[in-house]
């Protein structure tokens, strides 16, 4: 009898369970979950603070899910060691669990660089987990002043979630713009303006030199008084379990398109991995929910003896702040690397398309995101732009640009 073990209980783990159960409904699946909760929708923690969802709706799967999937979940325990030659996982209470196939779905952790005086700050939180969120919620009042370090996706989503529940929010970042990993300067400026109009204050190109209790002394000489501090500087993949066994890791656990790591019978999926990004033909950590599910699912199918290749991973993001929707995908090449940029602008709308060698490699859409999946499919499917009417597409996302055979297949066939 084979035994599957999954370390982690996030969306990648669920993809893995569902991948295994496509073919193998019998053999045991053991899930090791450091967090003491059934799987929940991590991206919804800011929507929870905002009151747009609640704990019940945040469940990613139904109450009876693990039972229906014939899984045993070990809650509140952490895997601390893998013995790859004995094919065993050791937990923090010394329990030893044997595996035939193992999947690492360990996600990422909030990275906090050393900051002077941080230990003097009483109310400081990360914003990664449900427990972080509940702790943060219990620390705020309607009079709280919040300082968020990090103007990335997590920091800004936290700001949006807290906005109507506190007195004021300041976000600082070393970068010269918000969402620097997915937006270029002009797009970031547009988003920043919108956030400022909605009451968020920014200190960009600035960082905390030191903390003294409820005061942050910035490098620029400014000071910020706050009641609650949120640390959202960045995330790092949880790779240690594999690197300690001699497996290959870079910024994430290295995987191939079957989700195999360099160690036999050990797979990995989700935020803890670094896999091929086809928009740049390079390996990247793609810390996004859709990729976590699809990678997990692919790993699960292969663990159960099936055959799956997931070779279409790209970064892609859909985020909204106070009613303004932003979508980004792929890679943006500068002109000295052969990239070309097309722009469409109108009132409240900015769209940028990045192409190279006759392919769409990336896009940024602000304000008009209708049918954006058509653009995403051009990147994922590597559709040559000379085979379609790209001029029309730049103005509006429409499937009319495809050939009549393709449209027949899309809308007259089973897809």
């Amino acid at each position, binding site marked *: 009898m084979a035994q599957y073990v999954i370390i982690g209980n996030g969306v990648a783990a669920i993809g893995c369970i569902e991948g295994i159960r496509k073919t193998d409904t019998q053999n045991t699946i053991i899930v090791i979950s450091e967090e003491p909760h059934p799987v929940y929708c991590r991206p919804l923690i800011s929507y929870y603070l905002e009151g747009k969802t609640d704990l019940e709706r945040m469940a990613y799967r139904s109450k009876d899910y693990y039972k229906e999937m014939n899984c045993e979940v070990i809650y509140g325990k952490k895997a601390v060691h893998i013995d790859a030659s004995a094919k065993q996982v050791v937990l923090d209470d010394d329990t030893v669990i044997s595996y035939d196939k193992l999947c690492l779905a360990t996600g990422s952790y909030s990275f906090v660089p050393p900051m002077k005086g941080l230990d003097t700050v009483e109310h400081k939180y990360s914003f990664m987990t449900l427990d972080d969120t509940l702790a943060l919620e219990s620390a705020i009042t309607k009079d709280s002043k919040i300082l968020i370090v990090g103007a990335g996706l997590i920091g800004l989503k936290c700001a949006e979630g807290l906005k109507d529940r506190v007195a004021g929010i300041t976000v600082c970042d070393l970068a010269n713009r918000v969402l620097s990993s997915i937006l270029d300067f002009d797009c970031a400026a547009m988003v920043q303006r919108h956030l400022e109009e909605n009451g968020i204050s920014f200190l960009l190109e600035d960082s905390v030199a030191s903390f003294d209790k409820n005061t942050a002394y910035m490098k620029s000489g400014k000071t910020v008084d706050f009641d609650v501090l949120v640390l959202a500087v960045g995330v790092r993949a949880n790779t240690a379990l594999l690197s300690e066994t001699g497996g290959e890791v870079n910024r994430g656990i290295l995987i191939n398109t079957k989700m195999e790591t360099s160690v036999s019978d050990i797979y990995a999926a989700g935020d803890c991995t670094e896999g091929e990004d086809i928009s740049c033909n390079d390996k990247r950590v793609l810390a996004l*929910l859709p990729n976590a599910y699809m990678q997990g*699912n692919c790993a699960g199918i292969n663990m159960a003896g099936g055959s799956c290749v997931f070779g279409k991973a790209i970064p892609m993001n*859909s985020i909204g702040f106070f009613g303004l929707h932003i979508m980004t995908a792929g890679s943006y090449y500068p002109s000295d690397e052969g990239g070309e940029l097309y722009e469409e602008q109108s009132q409240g709308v900015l769209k940028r398309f990045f192409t190279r060698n006759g392919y769409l490699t990336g896009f940024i859409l602000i304000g008009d995101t*209708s049918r954006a999946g058509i653009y*995403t499919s051009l990147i994922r*499917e590597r559709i040559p732009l000379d085979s379609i009417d790209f001029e029309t597409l730049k103005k509006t996302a429409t499937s009319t640009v495809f050939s009549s055979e393709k449209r027949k297949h899309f809308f007259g066939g089973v897809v």
Partner: protein
Amino acid sequence: MKRIYVNEEWCLGCHLCEYNCAFANSGKKDMITALKGKPIYPRIHIEENDKICYAVSCRHCMDPICIKSCIAGAISKTDGVVHIDQYKCVGCLTCVLVCPYGALAPNENGIMQKCELCLENTCGEPACVKGCPNNAIVYEERSE
């Protein structure tokens, strides 16, 4: 299973399907009170250029990428029909970002909606198909 299919060459571009869809999903008994003078948010829409036009609605894909991508676990599939739990949806539009067919769009409150084949409303079968004057959309079994 039965799905909605398009006969592109027969579409007149009359947009009746959009109105029939909006009405079928309005929960109202009378089309005038349901639609008159209001912006409509149908779950089917006409794509057109100067040569062609056709109606686009959810394909109820065999392996739907929207389900895998939904950040709220709000999309599921039962007996082949892909369904959005609007109570769980938070309107993040990730499904719009991934659907290759441009088949979803939010409702007037920013919550996601798409064609669910009129199985959940009182119509019981696709209202767009029933009302199409030229058989440009059909509801039938086709082989996979």
